[in-house]
């Protein structure tokens, strides 16, 4: 019989390994994330106590090769992990996205063999926490306008600049820093905390409150040449990292939508108003039908990008499409679910409003909704319209 949770029988056709993975992450989220997350979110703190369990379950570096401490799985596994984690909280998913796709991925892809051996296993086990510094106070959607510089000095580089909005910054031991060299070419560096970068917590967020966000200040930090990512040249390198992470965000948004769907449906059947369950009223049913549709569409897209990736046919346009649509879908779903829960909907206890506000950050980072619109516009028309 048809289940609303898996309307298109997508989870059902997963092979047993992926089903075990889904169950395992879901149990972790149900037992260990959801019961504590509201408090951390309210206090504006990232729950560091979850890190060891996340590492133990192998949720970081899932698609990295086993020889470097990774899980040796494919992107579908990464998608399932991010979907189930974000069902708990976008901040937890962000932690795993950054560590996996924005720190491990560039070291694997653009790093030397020594760098891979030195950093990847410790990143996978979370003995070392990393962050990814691309955005700056005056360079957001347009990272090519970055001001951070890397000056060559013999066998060393001097990094100077400030990165802003950096996830995991304050808890980081290493930072992947993107900076322009003397020829204005963007280069990537693995900067260790001991080399002297400073971080400052960014307080006062009303979104993604259970995630650590900070500034990374590089005040003439000396970095040896051996810490430069040798195969990263130009903006393409950080953008390739973002595309890995966006894949996980597209999946993660589905987790939120699924959570909202389940919560709103259950609530609407139990909540009696005017002597009947509110689920029996047509206006509620319309909302539920819309919630179902957005949720399942997003899930279909998530599965499809995983299939395309497996077939080697995934383009960055697909990823933009998926990140843009799925996050917007989750936003619409969370707003409708919030309304079904009435006053309870604004309470932390019911989790929906937390998801709803988290989605504002999720829709902004890794390319805003508008930027992905422009990418699709460029795909359709062949005309770039980012700049005049």
């Amino acid at each position, binding site marked *: *019989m048809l*289940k609303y949770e898996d309307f298109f029988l997508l989870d059902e056709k997963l092979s*047993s*390994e992926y*089903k*075990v*993975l889904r*169950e*395992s992450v879901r*149990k*972790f989220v149900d037992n260990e994330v959801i019961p504590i997350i509201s408090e951390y979110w309210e206090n504006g703190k990232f729950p560091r106590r979850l890190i060891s369990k996340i590492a*133990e*379950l*192998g*949720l970081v570096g*899932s698609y990295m090769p*086993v020889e470097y401490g990774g*899980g*040796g*799985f494919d992107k579908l*596994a990464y998608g399932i*992990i991010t979907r189930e984690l974000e069902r708990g909280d976008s901040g937890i998913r962000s932690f795993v996205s950054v560590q996996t796709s924005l720190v491990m991925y560039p070291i694997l892809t653009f790093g030397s063999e020594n760098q891979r051996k030195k950093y990847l296993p410790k990143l996978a086990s979370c003995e070392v926490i990393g962050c990814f510094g691309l955005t700056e106070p005056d360079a957001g959607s347009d990272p090519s306008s970055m001001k951070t510089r890397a000056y060559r000095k013999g066998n060393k580089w001097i990094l100077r600049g400030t990165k802003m909005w950096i996830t995991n910054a304050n808890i980081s031991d290493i930072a992947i820093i993107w900076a322009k060299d003397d020829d204005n070419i963007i280069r990537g560096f693995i900067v260790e905390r001991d080399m002297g970068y400073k971080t400052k917590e960014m307080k006062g967020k009303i979104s993604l409150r259970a995630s650590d966000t900070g500034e990374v200040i590089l005040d003439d930090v000396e970095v040896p040449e051996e810490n430069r990512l040798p195969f990263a040249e130009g903006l393409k390198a950080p953008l390739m990292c973002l595309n890995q992470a966006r894949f996980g965000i597209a999946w993660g948004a589905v987790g939120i939508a699924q959570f909202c769907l389940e919560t709103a449906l259950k609530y609407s059947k139990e909540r009696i108003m005017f002597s009947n369950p509110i689920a029996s009223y047509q206006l509620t049913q319309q909302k539920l039908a819309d919630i179902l549709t957005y949720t399942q569409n997003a899930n279909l897209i998530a599965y499809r990008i995983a299939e395309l990736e497996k077939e080697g046919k995934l383009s960055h346009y697909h990823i933009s499409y998926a990140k843009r649509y799925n996050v917007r879908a989750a936003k619409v779903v969370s707003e409708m679910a919030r309304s079904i829960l009435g006053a309870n909907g604004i309470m932390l206890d019911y989790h929906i409003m937390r998801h709803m506000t988290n989605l504002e950050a999720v829709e902004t980072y890794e390319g805003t909704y508008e930027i992905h619109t422009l990418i699709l516009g460029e795909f359709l028309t062949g005309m770039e319209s980012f700049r005049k």
Partner: protein
Amino acid sequence: MRILNIFKRVPDTYAEIKLSKDNSDIDKENLNYVIDPYGEYAMETSLRIKDKDSSIELVVLTIGPENSTELLRNALALGFDISYLIKYENYEKLSPLALSKIYIKFIEKYGPFDIIFLPKVDIDTNFHSICGYLAGYLNINFITSITTAEIVDNHAIVERETSMGKEKLKIKTPCILSHDKAPYEIRLASLKGIMLSKKKPINIIELSELEIKIEEHIIRNTLRLPPQRKGVKFLNNADELIKVLKEEIKIL
């Protein structure tokens, strides 16, 4: 040393149970099936035993339809070495005696095992008898409702909770232990474990291979859901209570 864990495939303990139209069974459509919770605790105990001595071979067995292999995959991902499914769609209809006979055939064919763990009760049918049947047939010792177990030499040291308190018992292997809730958390499958499980076998056994005739020893006539709980009524004072007891419940 070889340990066998037998678990029961049961409907998700959180699932909302509905009856089939003719009230002869529960409505199985849409039900999610899981490893029974006591079987899960028993598996955790076996895994803890293996944590201390990796030379121990852990074998897991269940009975059910083909897709029970998903549950076995989970066991393999947790650290079990070999898994077996006895394929039989109608396993939920089997009496404890019939189930025991099947398990015994399996043990005779694929054994011997030093310890056999079972759930203390099959939570779907609420029968407790398999442990006793197996011990009787195999002529070995058994202890029911244990909460923890460790291996010391050729013995299992187990704990149980009784109405007089916690007791610690020592039993010689081979033995059968039925497992209660354990005082520790059950581990979750890690990505690494799932990867390793891909190389481990899930063996499917057709019932015919065990050369056993299934008899219906117990036939269920009907099934009824427990009565629905009526809503709660809040009363303001003792006078109201007396009035309700007199006029509505009529016991005063």
